């Protein structure tokens, strides 16, 4: 009985739409028209969409780079905070601010930073180096993606550092002292002991971060809309364009997303599997 509200919400907002989504991928549904079954036509159309391979590549590059920076950076920041103790906390809470503010606000803020000419970065470049930056940040293919990755890391890295810090503080102090009495080198402590203890958290966090990075939509939609020259289109934004842009072909849009799912699952499932298995083993050993 008590589970009913949550279950109902889940059914209405996740379960039913997911199943409907899969179903729509096999129809020729367009807005305002009824759906007719058309087999695997949508998947063929999605694959032959000229931007599709580029979008897949961009999504993978974006996710891999962003996740690496966020998880490794978060881990290192947590290690540092753990060693300096209490004072670090207030500052680390402050660093959560980019994650707390609405995503659209942070995207617009970064447009202000990198606006050419006259944005804040341009001004700072002028002040420090005597000449304006003259880089078309959002108009140059490689640069635009780099800025979007940086924005993503700016928002999310401190969140993971606090998650890892929380996990670290769960490690019983006496275990740490025991290890230190055997080997006092802090690097060995970190790599041989703490890293192993945190492995479940790190693996599952990586999986989750990867999911979120793959699904990143609002910053790209607001800042570049997939441009310049479709260089920042990810599967998410491409599907949105196919579904709401000129094409309005929802079946194809969803087919594109479904085609990408195996790539996501190959990364996420092993991470979660190994993470939970190691976690269970640690609980048994404790």
């Amino acid at each position, binding site marked *: 009985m008590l589970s009913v509200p949550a279950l109902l919400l889940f059914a209405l907002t*996740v379960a039913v739409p997911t199943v*409907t989504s899969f179903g729509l991928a096999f129809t020729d549904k367009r807005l305002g028209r009824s759906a007719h079954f058309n087999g695997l036509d949508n998947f063929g159309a999605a694959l032959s969409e000229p931007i599709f391979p580029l979008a897949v590549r961009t999504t993978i590059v974006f996710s891999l780079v962003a996740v690496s920076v966020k998880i490794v950076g978060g881990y290192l920041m947590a290690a540092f905070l753990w060693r300096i103790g209490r004072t670090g906390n207030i*500052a*680390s809470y402050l660093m959560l601010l980019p994650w707390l503010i*609405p995503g659209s*606000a942070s995207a617009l803020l970064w447009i202000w930073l990198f606006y050419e000419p006259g944005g804040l970065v341009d001004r700072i470049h002028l002040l420090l180096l005597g000449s304006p930056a003259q880089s078309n940040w959002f108009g140059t293919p490689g640069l635009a993606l780099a800025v979007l990755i940086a924005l993503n890391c700016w928002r999310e890295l401190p969140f993971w550092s606090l998650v890892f810090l929380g996990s670290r503080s769960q490690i019983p102090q006496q275990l740490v002292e025991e290890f*230190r009495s055997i080997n006092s080198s802090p690097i060995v402590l970190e790599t041989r002991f703490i890293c192993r203890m945190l492995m479940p958290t790190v693996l599952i966090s990586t999986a989750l971060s990867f999911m979120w990075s793959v699904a990143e*939509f609002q910053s790209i939609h607001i800042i570049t809309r997939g441009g310049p020259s479709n260089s920042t289109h990810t599967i998410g934004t491409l599907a949105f364009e196919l579904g709401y842009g000129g094409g309005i072909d929802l079946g194809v849009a969803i087919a594109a997303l479904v085609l990408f799912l195996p790539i996501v699952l190959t990364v996420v499932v092993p991470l979660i599997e190994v993470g939970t298995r190691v976690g269970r083993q640690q609980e048994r050993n404790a």
Partner: protein
Amino acid sequence: MKIGGAIPWRRGRKSASSALFIVCALLWISPIVLAALSALRPPSEIRTSPGHLFGSEITIRSYQALLETPFGVWLANSLSVAFTSSALTVICALPLSYASVVGQSKLGRRVARLLLLTYLIPSTFLVFPILFGVTMLGLRGSSLTMALLSASLSVPFATWLLQTYIRLAPLQLFEAADQEGISMLPRVWHVMIPLLSPGVLVVAAFAFIIAWGEYTFSVGVLLHPNTYTASVGLPHFLQGDIWRWDYLLAAIPIVTAPALVCGVVALRVLAWLRGRWR
């Protein structure tokens, strides 16, 4: 509250490292702070030279000009959606966590785990069918719809948080009160509610932050400018021929404030709880 630090760095090294970290943290959030600072200029100057931090005078005219835009309506919509979403999240998550932990309901535990699947499905995948359903039911533009959708994003994590919380909370006090012969209503009011309040507060704050920043679904569901939330409305300041930097830079700190308050509340309560239950 000591959080670790097994390696006994010398005091000087610790203080220097802390100071360095505080500087880095301030640099990290500087774009937000600098935007607020930059907005304290005359609107015309902000529009012509957005990247400057200081102008001919310090004025709050940009903030005042913001009030003449629909921003006020957007802010009100955001607050309404966020508060409703918080309430809905607690209504869904609290009974479920209670049932799965205290009631030891197997179904409850399974449902809670199932809910976590939500985070494995990208929202772009759910957007289309949800928009269909919403349009068919004529619920487009409704605050309640947005609140429900935002709640669906926070309920799984909220359930997990509350389960952990309820497991650690000294709920045996509630049972003890029963054995003392105290009737249900005073028991709930004087024992249960104070026991559960901190956990519920954290969960409500978290749900508020999620709903406050929600964009992907909002962009599809909220079509009419009067129904926009702040999250959806802000990008409109940088559209068209003239980009209204003055409105945007003034809006940034206003949009930050509620999320900051909720974040501080949630983190303070969590720290307090960790201290109590160590």
